[in-house]
């Protein structure tokens, strides 16, 4: 099997080096770009399996690079950003980034995100059954089983869970979820989301106060992940 390729686009040599060491030792091929221009060029030539993109680039804004990439590149893009730039992160996720990490990050966290991104399976119209850990969703019959038992969910809870599981590993922003589940006019009504996430957690989390499946990304959104 060919080794999957990761393209790193970051202007900080130290960060690139840190990423490279970890990616290589985990069996990935690594290519590096120190600027947005170089990154776009390499991406087009290599068509890597994953792109790690820093938002703070010296030449082109990271968001701009992301936008151009997303015109043709459909594989996972992981965003790196400095802390406390929630809006930057939300914009990037809404522009099609799959995930984000804030500097400083832990290497364990980084590798978990990379693994999750590389198993990013795409679902399409023909998918009938979604499986994630203890959860099995029959999309045709609209039946959810949790540990083999049928789970009683309201219509909204069901839609929310399907949306989360379909996008396993991906961070879904509040606005995205509200728009998809409740409709355009509900984009600011985050209280609905909070309430339904709390209810869903009570039904599928071992301990709703320490969720392992539906993870809160503070100020940004939610991510569904399988407990490891």
């Amino acid at each position, binding site marked *: 099997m060919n080794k999957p390729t990761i393209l790193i686009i970051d202007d900080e040599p130290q960060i690139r080096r840190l990423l490279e060491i970890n990616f290589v030792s985990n069996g990935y091929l690594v290519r590096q770009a120190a600027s947005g221009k170089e990154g776009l060029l390499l991406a087009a030539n290599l068509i890597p399996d994953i792109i790690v993109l820093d938002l703070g680039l010296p030449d082109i804004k990271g968001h701009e690079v992301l936008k151009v990439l997303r015109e043709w590149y459909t594989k996972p893009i992981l965003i790196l950003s400095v*802390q*406390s730039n*929630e809006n930057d992160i939300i914009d990037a996720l809404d522009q099609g980034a799959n995930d984000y990490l804030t500097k*400083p990050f832990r290497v364990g966290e980084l590798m978990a995100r990379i693994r999750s991104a590389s198993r990013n399976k795409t679902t399409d119209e023909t998918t009938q059954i979604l499986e994630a850990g203890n959860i099995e969703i029959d999309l045709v019959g609209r039946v959810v089983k949790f540990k083999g038992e049928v789970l009683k969910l*309201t*219509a*909204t*809870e069901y839609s929310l869970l399907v949306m989360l599981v379909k996008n396993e590993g991906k961070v879904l922003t*509040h606005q995205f979820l509200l728009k998809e589940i409740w409709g355009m006019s509900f984009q600011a009504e*985050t*209280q*609905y989301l*909070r*309430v339904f996430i*709390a*209810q869903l957690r009570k039904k599928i989390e071992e301990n709703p*106060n*320490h969720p392992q499946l539906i993870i*809160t990304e*503070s*100020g940004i959104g939610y991510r569904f992940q399988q407990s490891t």
Partner: protein
Amino acid sequence: MPTKKKSTATQLIISIVLVVALSALGYVFRKYVDYMAVALILLLAVSTLAILFDIFSVLIAAILSALILNFFFIEPYLNYKINDTESALLFFIYIFIALVNAVLTNRLRKQESKIRDREEKENTIKIYNTLLNSLSHELKTPIATIIGTIDTLKESDTILLPDQRMELLSEIGIASNRLNTQVENLLNMSRLEAGNFQLKTDWTDINELIFIVIRKLPENNTHTVVFDPDEKLPLFKVDRGLVETVLYNLINNAVRYTPVKSTVTIFTGYTDGHLNIKVSDNGKGIPPSEADLIFNKFYRLPNSGTGGSGLGLSIAKGFIEAHHGNISVDNNKSGGAVFTISIPCEISYLKNLKNE
């Protein structure tokens, strides 16, 4: 020394009333006192006013005095006439004394404010120096640890036992986290100092937030943090990021500054339009004399040991005040400190509605 300056209108009224009252008194007793005595008394009054008040009121008082003297006390009475050199002189002396006094007083005041400015500047420098000392200590200590430990790892690579290597590596980890916390504090502080940051309020599940904060605390086996969530707690519209930082600082402080085996308990509650959170511990408590001081920038309780910048509580206070809320500290009856925050905000009871 003039304490608080009165408004021009007040100054004017006081000046006129004083001059008129003294003149009236002089007029009543005009049979017993010479007009020169009245002139001197009024002069004294004008001079006194010149020390206390601005030049405008003093000039009015001086002119008024001269006119009254001329009109009521100098022949021909009830008539303005500056017919002899004596009364002309009197008139000009009044104006002159008033002006001289006013100029001198003004100079004095300017000097005073210069001294005050200098004191303020010295104070700022003192605070700045405290900041530099505290900062260089708080930043350089972890940096020194990191550099030193890495040198040790490089140079003594062959003689170190695996356990020792691990220990040194975890020292680097601890130091880096400490550095990160301090930088975070400084960034928050500069956000506050910039003054014009916008609150980003959103509906917040406080129970969830508190659990997130508890999970973020540095690992410890020495203290117990207790939080029993109120399932009926509604949602509150607050700046989630800021409230998270406040709670982290309060709970982390409680863990750090109470003796081993202490318990930190978090309570939530709400009243009409207010979110209330208490962080209570069973440590030694806060001396009442320090209760207000501990929220000051760079203030640290005496004997609180090293490793702390004195920024955490002042950031907490700043973030709560940005919400127009209130933060205070009290002592438990049974001992230990209780920090209470109260934030006015919108409340959503949607959470308690039946599922759709």
